[in-house]
């Protein structure tokens, strides 16, 4: 049973995804009864079983997941949304698989434990082998072409996960990959995967791995401090010929971008960061924010004091609405991204994919709504 639920056995899942099940039986009904057979058997939802958990460093764990047949796979460098339920509430976070894509390997998510990060802490403390979590289809364009040519991969901190996937992917697929890897971390202990990367460098002549630490003395063979022109010149004098991928904190991205601009490097640069949206000052009435209505592909300028419902209507949109005072939930709308405050509760929400009542919610940052 378990075996035929895997992505390799797609036919069953394509049948389930047809309107037959969802229209006539109802998805929750099917999932309820099918769940008695196996939690992996669903009408549409992508679920994955935890097959193994590996502790990479004291604050980093890798979770090997085996998704069911609804999962369409991923490309190296993409993200996958993971949904877990914590104290009755579903939380969704995007993680990059750190393994190379391949039919047999499932998805390996490498998660750093963040102080105050509810989901990462929960994954570290509660997720067990055999548990089932919910996934989304892979997304994102931090990906390399099939024949990428020469590569420069720069990673900062836990931004190494999509970089690891890209490196492993080219090392598996190409006969003689030409890759320069530059790893940044506060301490040596923060350099996740450094040892695995060294092993790949030994196997492939043109793969070089360099590391730099910013928060402790560096060994003589390594670089030291933040990304700089000197670092780039030392490890990749041919940077202009290399397709570059950078993933890490905002500051690292800014440094690399600035250098690329300064030198007017012709080579393509792809960047990725995981920074939360910045909050605007509270009482700011000027329409300084941008609200995007994803479904209608429209957007409008917004302030931080007027409920989203009113602002959307002023902008000519017509969201469903009712009492306009937070009672009837007629205007409930999925917030895809952004920071908002619920005026009736005072609660500030920053998570993606939360339901908000537009009539009592004000934006605190740029927001994307499912409108």
């Amino acid at each position, binding site marked *: 049973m378990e075996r035929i639920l895997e992505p390799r056995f797609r036919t069953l899942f394509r049948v389930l995804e047809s309107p037959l099940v969802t229209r006539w039986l109802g998805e929750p*009904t099917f*999932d309820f009864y099918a769940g008695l057979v196996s939690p992996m058997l669903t009408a549409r939802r992508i679920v994955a079983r935890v097959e193994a958990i590996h502790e990479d460093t004291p604050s980093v764990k890798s979770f090997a997941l085996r998704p069911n047949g609804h999962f369409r796979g991923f490309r190296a460098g993409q993200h996958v949304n993971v949904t877990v*339920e914590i104290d009755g509430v579903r939380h969704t976070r995007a993680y990059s698989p750190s393994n190379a894509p391949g039919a047999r390997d499932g998805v390996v998510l490498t998660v750093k434990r963040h102080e105050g990060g509810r989901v990462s802490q929960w994954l570290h403390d509660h997720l067990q082998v055999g548990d089932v979590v919910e996934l989304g289809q892979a997304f994102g364009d931090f990906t390399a072409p099939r024949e990428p040519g020469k590569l420069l991969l720069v990673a900062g901190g836990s931004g190494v996960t999509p970089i690891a996937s890209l490196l492993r992917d080219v090392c598996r697929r190409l006969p003689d990959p030409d890759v320069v890897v530059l790893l940044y971390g506060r301490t040596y202990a923060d350099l996740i995967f450094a040892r695995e990367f060294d092993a790949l460098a030994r196997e492939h002549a043109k793969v070089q791995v360099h590391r730099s630490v910013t928060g402790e003395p560096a060994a003589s063979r390594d670089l030291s401090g933040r990304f700089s022109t000197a670092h780039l010149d030392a490890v990749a004098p041919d940077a202009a010929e290399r397709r570059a991928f950078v993933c890490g904190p905002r500051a690292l991205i800014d440094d690399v971008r600035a250098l690329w601009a300064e030198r007017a490097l012709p080579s393509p640069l792809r960047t990725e960061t995981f920074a939360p949206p910045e909050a605007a000052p509270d009482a700011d009435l000027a329409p300084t924010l941008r609200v995007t209505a994803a479904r209608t592909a429209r957007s409008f300028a917004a302030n931080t004091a007027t409920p989203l419902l009113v602002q959307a209507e002023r902008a000519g949109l017509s969201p469903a609405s009712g*009492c306009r*005072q937070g009672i*009837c*939930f*007629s205007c409930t709308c999925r917030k895809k991204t952004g920071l908002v405050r619920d005026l009736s*509760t005072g609660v500030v929400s920053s998570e993606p994919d939360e339901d908000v009542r537009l009539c009592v919610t004000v934006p605190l940052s740029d927001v994307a709504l499912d409108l």
Partner: protein
Amino acid sequence: MDQSSSRPLEREEIEAFGAELDALRQRVLGSLGEEDARYIRRIRSTVRWTGLGGRALLFASVLPPAWVGGTLLLGLSKILENMELGHNVMHGQYDWMRDPEFRSQSYEWDTVCPADAWRHSHNYLHHTFTNVVGRDRDVGYGVLRIFPEQPWHPGFLPQPLYAVWLALWFEWGVAFHDLELDRVIRGEKSPKQAARELFPVLRKASRQVAKDYIVFPAMAGPLFIPVLAGNATANVLRNVWAFLVIFCGHFTDGVESFQESNLADETRGEWYLRQLRGSSNLEGGPVFHVLTGNLSHQIEHHLFPDVPAHRYGQMAEDVRRIARKYGQHYETGSLVRQFATVARRILRQSFPSRPAKPRPAIGDVPTLQGVAA
């Protein structure tokens, strides 16, 4: 008779009263978590298992006890689904879980009325304009005269019969009630608009009819008729039960009705006060409360429509205390006693009657109104 026994409040008192209820609401919302998620999933599972069991027994209904048991079990499943699961989920009581299965905007329930129409007529019209004659369409469901403020005409004379008819076919009454056919007849709403709204109702209705009166009976082969009869009886059981609970929520003796003038500039505190005065509770044991979808705590439901209903029982103690502190009547009683007053009201209002005297509006408006009169 429906003269308020509640003390008129000064404006500051009303806002203080509202603030206490707001604080209670926040306290409960802040404590929502795994327990509540487990509760609603247990209800969901009970709905599924009783539904499956009921239909399975009906398939074995060559034996009469199996028919009776199957019908009762299916009726129970439908009651639980409509009252404790569907109604409450569609109020957004479980939206905080962010589970698509319990999401207010996408939930569809096991009754003729499409969920979208219900969210409009019930969540918006009824809960915002509770017991405001002319605005809250649940006052008499467009067919009954409940309050003397509704103008009388001879058509209301046989209304006790209408009421029985409505009780038996309540799900159809609910489904058509959002179409506002009475307003179409009076020329207040265009037939075109009504026709546009009719389509989703017919689509949902045909689905329900196909399920209970064609597909499942056909699956039973030679037992087509007993299964059809069992399904129909289960639907009627649910209809009558829902009618009883809902009519006892707002039309008992101790509740008040309101005029549109009450709505002008209504504050949060005044809205709370109108909800308290316009709703009425039922007393009973824990099973009774679950079977009513906790609408036995109608007052708490109207004060806090988006708080998970299984918390109302515990909140009721605080609400009672707050009501007493502000000298407000808290209407409650047994189902039998309360329904007797509803039945008497339906009988009485089938004959001409006049509002007793201009009742004091909420807040410090009465003095103003008195001067105006």
